[in-house]
């Protein structure tokens, strides 16, 4: 009954790794056994976002090449019981693993874990093909910007032709103030354009930077932040729960409106 979910985007820097870490933390804190797989070979990041960089001995490529057993490469999270990380290799490149090997690896992980979250590299080349190889489901991360949404559309097309029929969308870094001013695309605009199921909206939140600095994902229950709450909600939706979307609307204040009027006048 386990499920492998790939977190992908096309464009880099939109929040795949952040989403992967936070959804992993959220699912594990709800009592599930979760393993995070960093498939961004050569540009390993999930380890530092999780704050587990000092514990790495072996990596994904070591496992695939038979240098160690899978169990030896898995790092146990220091805060949550059922949470593990399989780090990417830092000194190899994407071609050191094939989609078949990735699928085998994910299938092996499924024997032990409820959820396997695969952090996909940017792009549509081999790294992407590896990351989706063993996945049952896909989550696409975008920001409300033209270039990110365009790349998301391309990825949705590629996922469809690889047999993923119902991918979910996460809109990350939404700035409610800019939306209120009409200077950022709104969720209905993006959903209308991409024609895809919305899984969640994560606001742009300085706390993400703080928590990444500390290696403590925002979704850890001790942390109180809008972004952390948004990720916890997405995790619950992944489990099939119906969770209302956070109200992120912020209106311009009277003074901001007046200032704008004077500026444009």
């Amino acid at each position, binding site marked *: 009954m386990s499920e492998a979910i790939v977190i992908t985007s096309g464009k880099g820097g939109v929040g795949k790794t952040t989403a992967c870490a936070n959804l992993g933390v959220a699912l594990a804190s709800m009592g599930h056994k979760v393993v995070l797989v960093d498939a961004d070979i050569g540009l390993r990041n999930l380890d530092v976002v999780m704050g587990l960089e000092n514990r790495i001995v072996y990596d994904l490529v070591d496992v695939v090449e038979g240098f160690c057993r899978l169990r030896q490469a898995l790092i146990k999270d220091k805060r949550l019981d059922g949470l593990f990380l399989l780090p990417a290799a830092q000194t190899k490149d994407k071609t050191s693993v094939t989609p078949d090997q990735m699928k085998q690896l994910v299938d092996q992980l499924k024997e032990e874990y409820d959820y396997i979250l695969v952090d996909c590299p940017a792009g549509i080349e081999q790294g992407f093909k590896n990351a989706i190889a063993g996945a049952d489901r896909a989550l696409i991360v975008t920001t409300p*910007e*033209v270039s990110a*949404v*365009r790349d998301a*559309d*391309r990825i949705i*097309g590629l996922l469809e032709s690889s047999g993923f029929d119902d991918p979910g969308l996460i809109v990350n870094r939404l700035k409610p103030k800019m*939306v209120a*001013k*009409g*200077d*950022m*695309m*709104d969720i209905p*605009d993006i959903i209308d*354009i991409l024609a895809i199921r919305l899984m969640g909206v994560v606001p742009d939140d300085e706390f993400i930077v703080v928590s990444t600095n500390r290696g403590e994902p925002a979704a850890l229950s001790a942390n109180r932040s809008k972004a952390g709450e948004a990720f916890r909600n997405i995790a619950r939706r992944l489990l099939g729960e119906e969770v209302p979307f956070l109200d992120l609307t912020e209106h311009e204040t009277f003074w901001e409106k007046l200032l704008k*009027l004077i500026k*444009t*006048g």
Partner: protein
Amino acid sequence: MFGWFRRKEQSKEVARDRLKLVLMQDRMALAPHTMEQMKDAVIVAISRFVEIDEKGLEFEWKGNERNKALVANIPVRSVRRSAKAID
């Protein structure tokens, strides 16, 4: 002064319109089969009413930045007396 009341197009509207267009072009470019399938579907639909020159059938994107139209040029050989039943 009067500029105060003239509404400037919001940048999100510009973004949305540009995205819609660029995605139309991306999707078309990435799906060369789609044009062929569309041609076949149109031939089947229209042939019930008119006899067309299938070889001369042409599809083309027309229009400007804002409005795109799919224009079909369909050479007709003759018009049928009554619509053919679909087989």
